[in-house]
């Protein structure tokens, strides 16, 4: 009996891990039945490029949620750091250097969140709600509400958001590279283990001598850095920095993380799930557009799909 239970549990575990993947496949099948052009190579490449921005933000959100936190400010961090990048570019800085500095500034904004949460002992929801408003305001102040344009025509910069490398869109390559690096960090390093430990049982993590504050600050900084990286891609894609960029992006990122099977209470989840979650959302957006569903109905469908996906996941877990 014992081994039967064990067996059943293992199967349960695998379907749990595969759950989001099966969902994605099902979605792809449905969409391509209704519109054959979905599977055309160019569309798939477009899809990957479209997904990249949300995926990058959602990676960072995964770390944050694994520690039991949440980051509502990602969209504003994206906007502020991309405005700063564009500002630097306009003032003549080398675009790639501007992007690197911009990403570091994003990390600093994330660190502000982390410090408010650890040193200031604020609930992550409130701290990042406040910085969301604040960073957005700063973006608007900095840009005076206008898009920043005239970013020059450095080829490397254009490639960053718009180009192809070996036939694959560069943002998609960035997305996969970041995935590889973050996967190793999360699953193969003590830092990743600590991330899980904090979310799973913060008190115990503290007692085990983990420097909880430092890990958290690093996690929020990482989220800020990744949002800024996503912002850089957006700046290149839009050839401008938009002051209103990234509004409500936190919701898509959180949805990707949750669709990927990560628990909002922390301590449990996989970054591969998040990638799949982002692909699900991207496929949904792309597919509904291809199927010509009106934008109003698209919202209804997206809400329903999230509910169904999570409900199926719950059923399996039970």
């Amino acid at each position: 009996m014992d081994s039967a239970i064990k067996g059943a549990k293992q199967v349960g575990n695998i379907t749990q891990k595969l759950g989001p993947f099966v969902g994605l496949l099902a979605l792809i099948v449905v969409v391509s039945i209704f519109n054959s052009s979905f599977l055309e190579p160019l569309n798939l490449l477009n899809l990957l490029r479209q997904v990249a921005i949300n995926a990058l933000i959602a990676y960072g959100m995964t770390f944050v949620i694994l520690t039991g936190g949440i980051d509502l400010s990602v969209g504003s961090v994206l906007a502020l750091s991309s405005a700063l990048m564009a500002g630097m570019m306009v003032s003549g800085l080398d675009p790639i250097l501007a992007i690197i500095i911009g990403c570091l500034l994003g990390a600093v904004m994330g660190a502000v969140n982390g410090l408010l949460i650890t040193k200031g002992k604020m609930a992550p929801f409130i701290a990042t709600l406040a910085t969301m408003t604040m960073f957005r305001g700063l973006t608007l102040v900095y840009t005076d509400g206008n898009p920043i344009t005239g970013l020059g025509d450095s080829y490397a910069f254009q490639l960053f958001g718009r180009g192809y490398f070996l036939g694959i869109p560069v943002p998609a390559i960035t997305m996969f590279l970041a995935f590889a690096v973050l996967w190793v960090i999360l699953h193969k390093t003590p830092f990743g283990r600590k991330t899980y430990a904090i979310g799973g049982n913060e008190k115990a993590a503290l007692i085990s001598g983990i420097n909880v504050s430092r890990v958290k600050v690093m996690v929020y900084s990482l989220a800020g850095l990744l949002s800024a990286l996503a912002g850089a891609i957006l700046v290149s894609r839009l050839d401008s920095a938009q002051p209103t960029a990234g509004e409500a992006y936190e919701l898509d990122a959180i949805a990707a993380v949750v669709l990927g099977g990560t628990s909002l209470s922390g301590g449990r989840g996989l970054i591969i799930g998040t990638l799949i979650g982002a692909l699900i959302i991207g496929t949904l957006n792309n597919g509904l557009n291809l199927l010509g569903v009106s934008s109003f109905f698209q919202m209804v469908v997206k809400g329903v799909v999230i509910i169904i996906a999570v409900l199926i996941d719950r059923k399996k877990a039970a």
Partner: protein
Amino acid sequence: MKISMENIHKAFGTNQVLEGVDMEIKDGEVHALMGENGAGKSTLMKILTGLHQKDEGTFTIDGEEKTFANPKEAEQFGIAFIHQELNVWPDLTVLENLFINKEPVTKFGLIQTKKMKAIANEQFEKLAVSIPLHKEAGECSVGEQQMIEIAKALMTDAKVIIMDEPSAALTDREIEKLFDVIRSLKASGVSIVYISHRMEEIFTICDRITVMRDGHTVDTTPIPETSFDDVVRKMVGRELTDRFPERTPDSGEAVLEVKGLGRKGVFQDVNFNARAGEIVGVAGLMGAGRTEIMRTLFGLDGKYDGEIFVNGQKVDVKNPSQAVKLGLGFITEDRKGEGLVLDFPIKDNIALPSLRSFTKNSLIQEKEEQEFVDLLIKRLTVKTESSKTEAKNLSGGNQQKVVIAKWIGIGPKVLILDEPTRGVDVGAKREIYQLMNELTDRGVAIIMVSSELPEVLGMSDRVLVVHEGTIAGELNREEADQEKIMTLATGGQVNG
């Protein structure tokens, strides 16, 4: 390693917990630390290991003054701490749990899983533990989790190991294993600080004993020079007669009857009854399924096989709210996690299951509520300034009394107590036993699940022994003894 603590003071806010504690731990001794709930035992050890900082006093280690800034430092110095509250990560595997924050890494900073496995296997062998390393810790029973904690501490090659109530969740078999390990550690020169509320253990394994009361050290004596009653007197500050109050059982009709109760893969074909005015003890090894049976009986786990009768009527217990309406009360083994709303005042905790009885026109009648609560607080002699004190500020024993008060308040027909005295000091224990007697005198049927055999033997009118999810046997008060219970609990047969 020789550690001496002198004149340690500590206050949390305005709550002065330690007021000049002295204690000395010698090389290679097992040193018992005892005291009532809230005496400050855990706090003292937390300060020693850098989890809290002292307000006053000195720690001297091997002749040098030393203060640790955090637990990691203490551990690196050779002091390991098995905490009273289990520090497991339910979603991480056993292996990951064992190595949290001390994973071996390659020179590229990557975790070496193979090396971890080898170390863990070796350690588990020593402890004769057979928990699969890839199992999620949350799926382990409390006892298994406790063994993980013990293994974790042993892995650090510590010179001093502090064990804060390590046996609370273990049954006798595991405790024996633990004692074997302690003996061999001692032989190799490791010192142990052993905190427990179980007298028998202290007298079995320890060399010296320090007793604390109200934030002071009473004294330290070698075990052979003291006695059971002596220790109790020092702890509670007065003479305490028998451990178990006398029972005059007088049982009536069967109030609760269970026929063929089962839940797939957990337990099966459970039959028993409980009569008015009777205490039914339920014994068994850790993980035997006692808690699961009681949870199902109380409607906490949903669908079940078999039938439940209350007062001879067949009932369908779908959820706890139905169980409560039927007159069942359930004091769970996890009083902080499931018994109390820690942020609530005592009053609100006690009133919670009986709100209906003093609600008129949809409004809570606050005066009636207050009277009701005050009465219960008095009857159970809960030590507190007022009924407005938050539950989290009470000592363990008093918290347990609040949980019991809350269920007495509904006027139960059947009261299920799961490990009612786990982590409760001797004084409070006796008061709880007395309460159980009072209840049975008024015709309440009590089912008491307990892993402490003396308690089972001392209080039960009848003993059910659970083995691997079935009732392996039933013994009445006269025939029950330690040996017979253990035989049944481990799958053996008892004639009679």
